[in-house]
């Protein structure tokens, strides 16, 4: 620096070095941009996952889930409006061993016919103890409900008492004269609860920060490359200037 700023500036702005400066600017800008892009991809993946799990608008059941389609992740905890007609009250089933408010009771499960012999099992509500089946609402009804996958194996179906230990679709398919969907719905409509307490649908879990982790990792890698490009630029330029200095002096 004792040679004075103008001489130093001239060394830094030699044609060859100006090319290096421009290249460094482009390289760093490119890395920062790519990092931002990957971070954006990470954000949108998180957003989609969140939307898949909750905070999604209620949609019509018809058109969302076709006949004989498997229960896919996109249906999990999905709020829907199901239009259909309840099967006769005697087709209902009690699902025993269900806790609510610290007490063990039973879910009232009713087949809702949504077309032909296609039926969706709907949890109408919770009762502290098994009683007579409440009557079903007559005619076509629209039920606000949340879709859930079928439950794991529980106590076997008791034909006389019409009780089962879990909403196990394959077991219930054998007992009901309908073509059942491979998941069920928990009703949030008081109108069809038959005087029972509504069952609060399970809260979907929080979205893990690891969803879209690949994009997050790429974002950081791009920024490391950008920092490295800046570091290389600094070393190459200072070396080049130092090497050129004696010739000028």
């Amino acid at each position: 620096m004792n040679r004075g700023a103008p001489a130093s500036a001239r060394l830094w702005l030699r044609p060859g070095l100006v090319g290096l400066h421009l290249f460094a600017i482009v390289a760093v800008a490119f890395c920062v941009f790519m990092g931002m892009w990957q971070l954006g991809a990470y954000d949108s993946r998180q957003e989609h996952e969140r939307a898949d799990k909750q905070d999604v608008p209620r949609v019509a059941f018809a058109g969302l889930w076709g006949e004989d389609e498997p229960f896919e992740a996109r249906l999990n905890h999905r709020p829907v409006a199901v239009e259909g007609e309840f099967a006769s009250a005697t087709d209902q089933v009690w699902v025993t061993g269900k806790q609510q408010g610290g007490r063990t009771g039973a879910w009232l499960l009713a087949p809702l016919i949504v077309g032909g012999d296609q039926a969706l099992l709907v949890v109408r509500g919770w009762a502290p103890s098994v009683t007579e089946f409440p009557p079903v609402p007559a005619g076509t009804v629209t039920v606000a409900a949340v879709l859930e996958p079928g439950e794991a194996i529980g106590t076997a179906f008791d034909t006389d008492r019409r009780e089962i230990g879990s909403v196990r679709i394959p077991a219930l398919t054998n007992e009901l004269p309908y073509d059942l969907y491979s998941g069920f719905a928990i009703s949030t409509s008081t109108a069809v609860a038959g005087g029972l307490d509504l069952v609060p649908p399970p809260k979907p879990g929080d979205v893990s920060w690891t969803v879209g982790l690949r994009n997050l990792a790429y974002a950081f890698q791009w920024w490391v490359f950008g920092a490295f490009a800046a570091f290389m630029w600094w070393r190459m330029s200072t070396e080049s200037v130092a090497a050129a200095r004696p010739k000028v002096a």
Partner: protein
Amino acid sequence: MKNPAGPLRPYQVIATVVGLNLLFVVTAAIAQRTTGDQSWWNRNDGLITVIDQVHGVLFMALLVLIAILAQRNRWKPWFTISTMLLATIPLVSFWAERRATHAVKAGSPHPA
């Protein structure tokens, strides 16, 4: 003065591993987009993600080794930059490694 060819062997090893790894990363990326959900490539997305990350980290190590080689052998900036950039192109990366190795062995202070 430190031995200019000192980091050559580690550079050659890492460059070859990164080059092979790059071939896998590119193949997997294409295969995941062109095959169905049930193909091996899409069923093993987690494994491929890990391999992709390993590639990223090894590539960083490769850049550092190239930078050390460049300094000890007084490479021109463009030779250094092109050696780094060519390492990102499948197959061409192997040629770039040969070129850099040749430059170090020739001991030329300013290879073209």
